[in-house]
């Protein structure tokens, strides 16, 4: 393949700076010793990282986000894998409609989803509960898992399952010993993408949390819209670090590009 020319390399450099700029700025600001936002920081201080410990509401929120992400991604995976097996295995009446329904959360503006969940949950008196939040997140992230598992199912050789059956395996054994291991990369990739999506979700969540279930993005958002002190930057810096670790992990395990394009593991 031909190489990129000098202009292309320069373009790539400028663009990379553009993409990294805001992130670097947030991290830089977090290290300021001052009481206001400054960049570049006049010195290096961990003052604002220590301040996180004095503001337990951020730690509580991060904890809730973590639990929420794990629970929602797991519930969505348990629901999406059988659905993907059904949809990915050839035609049946109603298949296209089912697939469209399960992918529809990607089409509906998130703010519309947010108010719809708010309306529904508050009528049931479930608004702000962890369970309500978790089920709503499960809906929003199901499409991500479904797409990746569908791609794995498409790459599945039906005759491998037939081989297992002909050797005497029962349906559940076939699934556990043959089908699941074959689609596992897609399932794990889908779970991780779903977890990250849930962990970062703001627009829907902001409508359906209450003070006791406030997630990290919502906490950060409401803090930023009131004041911008270096505390939000240090919390954000920690969140960035967490995401970068996850990101590198996902990239090693699955390939970031294929995960986000929604293709199966080759």
């Amino acid at each position: 393949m031909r190489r990129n020319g000098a202009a292309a390399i320069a373009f790539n450099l400028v663009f990379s700076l553009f993409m990294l700029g805001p992130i670097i700025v947030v991290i830089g600001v977090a290290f300021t010793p001052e009481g206001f936002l400054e960049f570049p920081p006049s010195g290096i201080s961990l003052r604002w990282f220590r301040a996180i410990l004095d503001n337990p509401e951020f730690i509580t929120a991060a904890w809730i986000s973590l639990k929420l992400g794990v629970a929602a991604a797991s519930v969505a995976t348990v629901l999406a894998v059988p659905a993907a097996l059904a949809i990915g295995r050839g035609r049946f009446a109603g298949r296209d409609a089912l697939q469209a329904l399960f992918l529809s959360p990607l089409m509906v503006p998130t703010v519309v989803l947010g108010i719809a969940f708010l309306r529904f949950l508050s009528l049931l008196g479930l608004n702000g509960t962890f369970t309500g939040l978790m089920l709503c997140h499960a809906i929003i992230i199901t499409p991500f898992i479904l797409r990746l598992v569908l791609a794995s199912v498409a790459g599945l050789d039906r005759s491998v399952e037939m081989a297992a059956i002909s050797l005497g395996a029962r349906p559940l054994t076939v699934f556990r010993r043959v089908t699941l291991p074959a689609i596992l990369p897609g399932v794990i990739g889908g779970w991780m993408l779903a977890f990250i999506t849930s962990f970062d979700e703001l627009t829907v969540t902001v409508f359906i949390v209450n003070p006791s279930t406030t997630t990290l993005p919502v906490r950060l958002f409401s803090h930023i819209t009131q004041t911008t002190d270096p505390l939000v930057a240090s919390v954000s810096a920690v969140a960035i670090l967490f995401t970068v670790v996850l990101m590198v992990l996902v990239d090693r395990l699955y390939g970031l590009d294929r995960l986000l394009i929604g293709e199966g593991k080759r």
Partner: protein
Amino acid sequence: MSARATRAWLLSTPALILFAVLLLVPLLMTFLLSFNSFDFYGGIGSDLSLANYAEVLGDSYFYEIFGRTFLIALITTLICAAIGVPQAYILYRMSPLWRSITVLIVIGPLLISVVVRTLGWAILLGNKGVINTALIDIGLIERPIRMMYTSGGIVLALVHVMVPFMILAVWAALQRQDPAVESAAESLGARPATIFFRIVLPQAIPGVLSGSLIVFSLSASAFATPAILGGRRVKVVATTVYDEFLNTLNWPLGAAIAMLLLASVLVVMLSWNRLVERRFGEVFQ
């Protein structure tokens, strides 16, 4: 029903129940809510009328908000296409090592919370922000340029948030092309620019189109970025709905605005798809 169809429906049932109860029903209820009346003392009424829609469609204030929202989305989409196409092509031509590093840099931010990324832009764009301070320090300007609380600032940050989607879509399209076509064009005497515009770009068009659709619809319904960078001064549809629901507490009016947003996004999506299929259906499948 055949045995296979029965099995498929059984496997889908758990997800179907969740989606029916917690997605279809709430959307339907919100649709109905948009026809209810509201008053500040009695709360949400149970009568049904088109009054909320009449209010939105009869007020130039809302036209301005919808107009601004879609203009911001349109400009964001155009800029994303202008930047994303060359960047995807550059990525496509990189050596595997550089490519995996660059993917982490240019696509990785997608996984970082939008709130955090927008905070970065707020720090950069403020009157005492990084950009203004730097410009004043070098002496290029005397007074800070106002970038916070402007549509321009929102577009800039939205481009940052959305451009990875465009790159991914275009890149996916580029990867579907036969790697030998560029060599074939070159062997026939084409120069690099000709190869890009006559061979590569046409094959990337489906990716540009699907990327544009994603970027446009996400930008039109974006919330966090306009909320942080626009505040109360530069309102878009999503932030208006938020205010109606959580500040004014006029849920029926908020629901009507949301339904209009949903309808316009769906109309744009469907007509875009129709257009794409008619123009490109035969060539790209």
